[in-house]
């Protein structure tokens, strides 16, 4: 297999911070749900926006990582590592991006007063999607980044 290899590219401290941000965005997501369930509209808006912002930070970090890896010679066709890495983390990043759009849509609904306590199911379903994206990253972070051959 031609390089570069994972050990040449991975910046574990940087990715750990990204993983931490995504993990903590799950906390802000459930805080948004708790807020809407108790009728706290201000809290709902704050936590939805915080979650979306943390998602944007994560995706920005991923974009930076992709750019850096590509600059160092890794592409989809460089080697098996490049193919699997970009496909796996790229699909995950795409799902995070969709999640951010869902969160921002919910924020706009909340701003317009269309996301009341009675409609908290929307926030709960968006939360399930967001947490699922989070648990997938828990697995990817361990299997791809921390456990290296």
């Amino acid at each position: 297999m031609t390089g570069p290899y994972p050990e040449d590219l991975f910046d574990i401290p940087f990715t750990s911070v990204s993983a931490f941000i995504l993990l903590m965005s799950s906390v802000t997501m459930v805080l948004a749900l708790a807020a809407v369930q108790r009728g706290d509209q201000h809290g709902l808006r704050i936590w939805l926006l915080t979650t979306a912002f943390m998602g944007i930070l994560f995706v920005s970090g991923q974009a930076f990582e992709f750019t850096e890896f590509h600059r160092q010679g890794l592409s989809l066709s460089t080697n098996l590592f490049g193919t699997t890495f970009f496909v796996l983390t790229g699909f995950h990043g795409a799902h995070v991006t969709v999640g951010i759009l869902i969160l921002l849509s919910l924020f706009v609904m909340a701003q317009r007063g269309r996301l009341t306590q009675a409609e908290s199911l929307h926030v709960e379903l968006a939360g399930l999607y967001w947490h699922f994206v989070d648990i997938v990253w828990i697995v990817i972070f361990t299997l791809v980044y921390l456990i290296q051959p």
Partner: protein
Amino acid sequence: MTLAEFRGIKAATGEGGRAAEPVHRQGAHPGPAEYIKIGLTLAVITAVEVAVYYVDALSDVLVPILVVLSALKFSLVIMWFMHLKFDSRLFSTFFVGGLMLVAALFVVVLATLGGALV
């Protein structure tokens, strides 16, 4: 309406359509304080994961330690944040069933193509 309430409502049954009644007794969701405690626990586990990665003395047992810590984080998120701990067992069954299917597929693919992939 919460998802728990949504799931707990049974359509009116019988002649005359009696009032809806809960199919499952759903536990209440945790409050913000409990969510923050779980969040702090997740943060600590992540810090331990990264710390363990840098300890050379643990390199022989690195993989099992990381897998256990990762599984712990995974479980905390699905049980507390995705509310499986408080929901009907049916949803946990679906979730675990899906995971087992994925694991089986993973093993079959590796057993079949593993040599060709490495």
